[in-house]
């Protein structure tokens, strides 16, 4: 079934890795997902269930063995690398499981960098401030990543992911290394973004506690989607 308002739609995705003995490891097996526009979609699954692989394919960082991904009506699995890069730069924001801030840049610079990449027109400093305040870090703008706690870093990553006003934010286990309170705060921010900015968010988690919060929830187990 194809949902009309879906911003992202993946059909029959299969990802196979060759094994040394000649066989294949099926990381994803015929997975189809729809991500509704402006909503929070949750991809749930245990570690090793294939959710990061699926996520990478959905955002164009990885190629599926079989299947197609459409973003905003455009087929991205067939896109040239350069076009994909442009797409990521303008329309997509990332929050990685591994935090992945740029270690040599301060919180503000990290956020500003996303703006630079997306050729943000307007007052970059104001926007940086706005985004960092949104995640509650207005006071820690000039700190380097290694001077902040894991939660703080994750929030900077979120600020960076949304700063340039992407249509879609991919968040891979954004709460994975956070305590329950902080994790809840992060999810709250996501919901807030849905509401105020109309940003579509796709996040993965292994935490069952967030199931109710998601507008749509997919569950992945051993590369197969569970209903």
């Amino acid at each position, binding site marked *: 079934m194809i949902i009309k308002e879906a911003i992202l739609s993946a059909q029959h995705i299969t990802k196979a890795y060759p094994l040394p003995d000649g066989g294949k490891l099926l990381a994803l097996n015929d997975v189809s997902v729809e991500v509704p526009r402006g909503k929070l979609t949750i991809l749930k699954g245990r570690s090793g269930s294939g959710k990061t692989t699926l996520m990478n394919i959905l955002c164009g960082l990885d190629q599926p063995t079989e299947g197609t991904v459409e973003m905003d009506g455009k087929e991205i699995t067939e896109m040239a690398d350069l076009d994909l890069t442009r797409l990521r730069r303008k329309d997509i924001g990332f929050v990685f499981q591994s935090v992945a801030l740029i270690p*040599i840049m301060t919180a503000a610079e990290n956020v500003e960098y996303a703006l630079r990449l997306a050729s943000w027109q307007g007052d970059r400093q104001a926007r940086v401030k706005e985004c960092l305040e949104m995640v509650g870090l207005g006071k820690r703008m000039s700190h380097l990543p290694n001077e902040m706690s894991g939660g703080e870093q994750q929030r900077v990553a979120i600020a960076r992911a949304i700063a340039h006003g992407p249509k879609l934010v991919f968040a891979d286990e954004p709460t994975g290394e956070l305590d329950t309170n902080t994790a809840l705060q992060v999810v709250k921010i996501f919901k807030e973004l849905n509401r105020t900015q109309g940003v579509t968010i796709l996040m993965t988690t292994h935490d069952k506690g967030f199931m109710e919060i998601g507008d749509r929830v997919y569950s992945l187990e051993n590369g197969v989607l569970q209903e």
Partner: protein
Amino acid sequence: MLRFVLRKMLHKKWLMAALLIGNILLIAIAAGSPMYTDAALQRMLSDTMTDYVVQNGRYPTTVYLLSTLNPNARTGSAALNAFWEEDALAARLPEQLGLPSRWLVRNIFLSDATIRPEETRSNFRSKTVRLGFLSGLDEHAEIVSGRLYQERQDGVVEVVVSQKAFISMNLMLGETYTVDSMTVEGKPLRVQVVGTFEAADSGDHYWYKAPNAYADQLLMSENAFAALTGDLSGQPCKVMGLWFVIMDYEGISIDRAQELYDVSQALRAQHKQVIGVSYNDYFADILEAYMRQETKITVTLRILQVPIYALLVAFIFMVAGQILSMEQSEISVIKSRGAGKHQILGIYLVQSLLVAAVSLAVGLPLAALVCQVLGSANAFLEFVSRRALAVRYTGTVLLYALGAAVLSIAAMVLPALRYAKLTIVAQKQKKRKSGAPWFQRFFVDFLLLAVSLYALYSFNAQKADLARRVLEGQGLDPLLFLASSLFIVSLGLLALRIVPAVSWLVYTIGKKHWSPALYSSFLWVLRTRSQQGYIVAFLVITLAIGIFNAQTARTVNTAEEERIAYMSGADIVLQESWMDNRAESVGLNPSLTFKLHYFEPDFGKYLALDGAEVVTKVIRDSEASCNTKQDTTAYVNCLLMGINTREFGQCVDFKTELLPVHWYEYLNAMAPDPTAVLVSMNMHTQLGYELGDTITYRSRDGFTAQGVICGFVDYWPSYNPKTTILNEDGTTTEMSNYLVVGHFGYMMSVWDAVPYQIWIKAKGSTSFIYDFAMRSFTYFTYFSDTSAQLVELKNDPIFQGTNGILTLCFVVALTLCAVGFLIYWILSIRSRTLLLGIFRAMGMTMREIIGMLVNEQVFISLVSIALGVGAGLLTSRLYIPLVQIAYASADTVIPLEIVAAGSDMARLLIVVAVMVAICMAVLGVLISRIRISQALKLGED
């Protein structure tokens, strides 16, 4: 543990390979250079000995003992014992010196014996002769007339005499003489001359004293002499003993130089205390001169190597540090699981021992190659095949190799000490702390710079001191060379401030306009300064050392070659022996004037020489004089030259930069006026002569002529403006030399024929002149062949070793520069895989990533390379004039010019370009291999 270490090493095979390269080079060079020094010194000593034999016709290892015994010595007296002690010493000397004995020549005789013929001759009344024996005579002499002595029962002693003695003493063959002072059984001793002898083989070293030198000796057999004199007690006349101990010199190894010298000195001192004996040898002086040279060579070569060792150890330290910093999390993990500090150190010790063992195994054989390379160095980066050096693995060589291994083990293990202390927590804490490195906090770079500049300043102030060292035969001042190395190191450290400053400046200027890629790359360059420290300093230092070495070698070589060419004048300069009529003046009535007249040898034969391009006559009189301007009757010494301007100009290759205008202009200026002379500039500055002044000059034979000064020259072929003399008290005095150059034709017309030199410009090789001399039996009183002198220079152990070591250092510096550069960049990129993944995920294109890295290269590598080249050139400019002094002969005749061979620079830049290109290619491959999703996963660990 061994297996663990081996696995760990295999895992980092590239870094390990780099570590091995550094270690093998270190050990090969550390072992190879003493090996070279040893072999070159041995060659030098052997050559000196061989030359001595050729020039003096005798073995340098000849000891000559002399003893005199007064008449009527008593048995058991000290004097008699001393006499026989000399005889015993002569016999045991070879053993005492440890040299194989060739001949022992004993010549003991009674002096002042008077003989008279038994049958009186009118032309022979009596003669004072020496009566004795010469051991080995029968084997080495050829009887010219008569026969050799034989034993006789009738109391008559048969003797033989040398040809010279036979004639000069007017002896007759078969004649019997009575020796009145000697009695045998109460009757006067009778001797009969039965033969005359000469040397059987004139080249026989047995004849240390030629047969003719035995001009007053009647020689009998040793047995006869013993029967006659017994133990030499109670002899009526003085007894003398001469012992020539001739030993093989070929076996003298340099290790024994000091020992032999000491034995010689001891014997000399011992003999001084005993009356009537003396000790002489020829090898002590040679050994003394050798040992002076040895110190100079060893010190110079060792000093020159210091930068290589420093570089290699720094390189090893850097690579070991890299390995450690890559392994620090592993170390922390091992530590957190309970491994002690000692176990961690143990792991690195085992690893470094393994590396050292492999390096020794490869490095030691390689050392022999290094040694041969050094020995075949002809000039900088230029080799010829020479007689191979005799390579020996002496204890010193092994000691050096082991020392190098220990040094490198220390360089590999010491950094581990720091890490071994840290646990995972401490390590994370440490990661957050980053500030200026310690040497910047304490301004060590400025301090080093100040020290090296102060040294430069004080050496410049004491240039005379350096010149004196050369006159005294000492080598390169270690401090001076150290100062230049320090200067380079300080510049390398200073670059750590300059490189980020340059990027900061560029970054700040265009801050608003940088593309995201350039922006992040500038931030990277500026905020990871401490990580770039190694590579920046390393690039600057290796390149600077490379350039400094290249220019030092070129300058030292060129300066010496040019000096030789300048002082020689032409390719070949020679003078034949000139006959004169001086003999006629003997006994001439002083009232009559005697006119000295020379007979000119045939000059035409030189014009006919095939290999000569230009032949010209040059009067060159170094004992001439000229008057001063103030007092026209006072004369000062000067060098007088008489030239044919046109031919002289064609014959001599004069470095025209030495004069303000082309030197042909000077020749042209004097050409029209036959009386015109060029004089040296110091005659203007010191004697006050001006252009147009008339000067009177006088040749060594007292001929005078007048000239009109038409120009002043600072330099002139074969003219040395200044001589430095070492005074007895260790101070030096500079003496100005004056020069007068006039027309050859004019002098000849005024003075008649005076001896002149023949200056020849060769078409190619100068061998034709040797053929000519051999064929025509021409004897030269003066001969100089520039090309032969140049060959001699190239064979000089100091020049050869210097060229070899500087070449080696240049090559090593560039190798390390390239390897270090590649390692740094490859590791730097690999360690940033995650970061590059983030950049890609955030939407940076491949091109932007590459642009970012290129920018980084420009501001880290290229700026460093430019600084390194600049530092090298600066160091050369500042320090080479001082370093060169150590190689110059006593006088730096012509001004020094720092020589930068374009080819060296080209080589250097090609290596750098190739290195950067390889690096970029490798980086390209590395980057294109990065899968974003994969890279990001890395971060999850």
